[in-house]
């Protein structure tokens, strides 16, 4: 008997690109009939300005479009799929009502240049959200304009620069801890500052001595993350702020980890001058596969004049945009920011209130400490102190069997979990940074812990199984070296 011929159809496990699908003449759209005379671009425009067609664009029917993207979505893993303990990213649940709220026609169809009378609701929402963020953080004023945390950093550092320049000298350096997110040094350097790295101490936090040693009259600011990326509260923060202020510098706080602090303490009360919020982390707006987020910035009163324009002003019952701000750093993005993201965060704050936000932080702390306590011994804990909202292990014990953090991450996928953040913070070799958030029931945490323990045993008994993971996903481990050596960044026929 002869072997059956292999089928040349595309298996269900693959999805062709849109450029490889559909066919000439297929339509996925419908348009109303033209109710005016048809214009001829070739008569209206100079000949050299025209193109015949957009070469390569697909032609697909509606059902093909839906099936294509539905299938792609099934190859993703989101918070709604399961546990997503990606450290520093706060992958908490995204409430569904907030999606509906953002799509209310009055918000979703509002043009950014609507006359003032027609945009009062939008302005009021923004004004109140600013107030709420100020209340949560203890800052005096807030701008909602930055599109993301990194743009918030840029906004904050530009304000610090403008403030110092007004006092005669913008200065040249910015202190950045070795535990900082990569955006901190990148944003500082975009502001024209030279970055000076500060080492954290054996307890994983900044020491006043290290700051004092680097602090001088040429340092514009310290950028600190609190709690830091090891999930530890910067316990000397007040003394550190005093040292920086003592030499005329400003203190910027990266608010990426604010989910640890809601209702428990306020960044502003510590003496911090500038803070950015990540609405997509702390305030539950969806991460969208990598944006859109929003990165509002809060400042103390001495920096209010430098906020980006426009600033929302309340006048009696009305709200208006104020562009007449001579000391403002200007605009950081078009219009007023990621408005639809703000609506979601606003809805979240109104749903939880003060008590709910505090509960969220306390439960996030409990969940992280629970994981830390139960995995201790199975994984190396480089900084063995009570943590805040996330805990950082390393792959040191598994290295003995040739298993790395990357392998552990890939093996977790086989068990249905999204891996934690790996190889960050940089101060921990082979870091596994776990942030459970408040969104997980105890049983889910328990299953994750059991699986992590199981993987630690597999690393010992069958390291090859772990090193070759994942085994259950749509694709196996991908060749990233090839993708960088010979970049193929677009489809070509």
């Amino acid at each position, binding site marked *: 008997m002869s072997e059956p011929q292999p089928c040349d159809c595309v298996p269900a496990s693959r999805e062709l*690109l849109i*450029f490889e699908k559909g066919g000439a003449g297929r339509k*996925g*759209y419908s348009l109303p009939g*033209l*109710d*005016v005379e048809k214009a001829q671009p070739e008569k209206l425009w100079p000949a050299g*300005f025209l193109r015949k*067609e957009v070469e390569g664009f*697909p032609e697909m029917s*509606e059902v093909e479009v*839906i099936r294509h993207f539905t299938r*792609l979505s099934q190859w993703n893993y*989101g*918070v709604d*799929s399961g546990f997503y303990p990606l450290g520093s990213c706060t992958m908490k649940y995204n409430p569904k*009502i907030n999606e*509906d*709220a953002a*799509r209310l026609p009055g918000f979703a169809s*509002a*043009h*950014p240049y609507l006359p003032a*009378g*027609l945009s009062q*609701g939008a302005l009021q929402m923004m004004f109140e959200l600013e107030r709420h963020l100020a*209340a949560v953080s203890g800052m005096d004023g807030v701008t909602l304009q930055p599109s993301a945390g*990194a743009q918030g950093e840029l906004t904050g550092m*530009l304000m610090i620069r403008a403030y110092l320049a007004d006092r005669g000298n*913008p200065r040249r350096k910015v202190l950045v801890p070795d535990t900082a997110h*990569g955006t901190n040094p*990148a944003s500082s*350097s975009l502001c024209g500052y030279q*970055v000076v790295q500060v080492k954290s101490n054996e307890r994983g936090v900044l020491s006043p001595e290290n700051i004092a040693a680097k602090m001088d009259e040429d340092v514009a600011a310290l950028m600190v993350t609190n709690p830091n990326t090891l999930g530890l509260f910067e316990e000397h923060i*007040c003394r550190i702020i005093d040292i920086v202020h003592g030499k005329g510098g400003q203190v910027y706080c990266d608010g990426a980890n604010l989910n640890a602090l809601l209702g*428990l303490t*306020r960044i502003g009360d510590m003496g911090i001058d500038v803070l950015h919020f990540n609405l997509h982390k702390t305030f539950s707006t969806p991460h969208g596969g*990598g944006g859109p987020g929003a990165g509002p910035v809060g400042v103390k009163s001495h920096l209010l004049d430098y906020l980006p324009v426009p600033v929302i002003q309340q006048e009696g019952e009305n709200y208006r945009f104020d562009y007449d701000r001579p000391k403002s750093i*200007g*605009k950081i993005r*078009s*219009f*007023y920011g990621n*408005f639809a993201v703000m609506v979601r965060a*606003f*809805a979240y704050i*109104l749903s*939880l209130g*003060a008590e709910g936000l505090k*509960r*969220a932080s306390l439960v996030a702390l*409990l969940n992280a400490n*629970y994981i830390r306590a139960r995995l201790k011994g199975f994984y190396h804990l480089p900084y063995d102190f009570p943590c805040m909202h996330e805990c950082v292990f390393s792959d040191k014990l598994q290295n003995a069997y040739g298993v790395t953090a990357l392998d552990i991450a890939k093996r977790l*996928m086989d068990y249905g979990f999204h891996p934690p953040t790996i190889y960050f913070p940089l101060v921990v070799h082979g870091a596994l940074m776990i942030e459970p958030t408040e969104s997980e*029931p105890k049983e889910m945490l328990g299953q994750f812990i059991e699986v992590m323990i199981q993987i630690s045993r597999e690393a010992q008994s069958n390291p090859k199984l772990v090193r070759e993971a994942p085994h259950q996903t749509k694709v196996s481990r*991908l060749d*990233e070296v090839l*993708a960088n050596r010979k970049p193929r*960044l*677009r489809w070509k026929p």
Partner: protein
Amino acid sequence: MRYIPNAEKDWESMLSVVGLRRLEDLAAILPKDLRLTRPLDLPSPLSEMELLERLRSLSEKGKEGKKWVSFLGAGAYNHFIPAVVDHLLRRSEFYTAYTPYQPEISQGTLQAIFEFQTLICQLTGMDVANASVYDGASAVAEAVLMAQRLKSRKRFLISRLLHPESQRVTQTYTHPLGFALEPIAYGGDGATDLQALEKALGADVAAVVLQQPNFFGCLEDVEKAAAMAHSRGALLIVATQEPLALALLQAPGLLGADIAVGEGQSFGNGLNFGGPYVGFFAAKEAYLRAMPGRLVGETVDRDGRRGFVLAVATREQHIRREKATSNICTNQALCALASLVYMTTFGKQGLRELAEMNLSKAEYAKKRLGPVGSFRLSGPTFNEFVLTLKGDPDSILSSLLEEGLIGGLALKKFYPELSREILICVTERNSREEIDRLAVAIGQRSET
């Protein structure tokens, strides 16, 4: 506390594992003098029903339940979005995921970005496009920063007809680095004055920045500008705020642009009072390593199957830190997905048909409005144009509101010298009857 599963009963056993008794004891990690002893000053929590009502009333405030007819464009365009777009965006495997750091379980996002990058290349006539940036304005700012890296020059010639928001954002981004941004005037045809450009060009110019179509809706001679810039060793950056025009207009990359950027809102993203939108960013192959932002590349897995991963990341902040090409750390993935689905749904034919419809309606509007105003800035346009009114724009526009008409944007907001001019945008959403109404209403309010 419907979003927080663990209840009091669950805490007990968990707390005992960590050696604590009460949930509040966790706050003891914080230094005592920093602990907050009073509740945050926030409104009482709302139920889902109350919340929706509160937001609904806010969203409708001041609109009196009227059906408003809008002719506002000016960088944010009122296009119809096919139902498929939002249905796919609501797939929560897309919107509740994050950055595709783990490619084996992120092929959906990764393949979508790869497709988006390809469409942007095709649309702009460029070799490489990134996964998107925040918006059209920051795309321009990033392009200017990139040109400085490539040319090691700090002088830029910026058309005054680049979207004013993009001009301001670029100013903000480049101010601390000491760039010189010089405005290039516009001429009577509503396009950038290329003679003024020629005069301003010198061997110290890093790049020229034009918008196509420009802020007045008029078309620029990209090819001529590219030749001028290149003759002095400068790059040409072309920004497009209304990419639908590129369904009919020659791709900037084929006319000599070195970097093509723009705003993708028009393609499948709602107006949303200004955001989130999505900036697209494309360039010639040679400039790949200087590009900002995330890139997705094709590769293979261990079994030789095609797959996609984040690629060429050695430019980015998480690796290069202060030496990165940009501080951007995400893209606008979901907005880019909306644009991708929109472009795929309309496809090659549909996008062209839609663009022709926009052009036709705008031309009709020009015909109808001719008698009630004039076209002082008279070059060829796409779906928006400048009308010089017989009277004060502010009072005419606010009086039009009484008839439910949002007539356009008074240009003196950005161009003080244009005291009687308004910018009118006409898309497929504006019917002939609405255009007629606008013409009649403006006519009734014009000084004779």
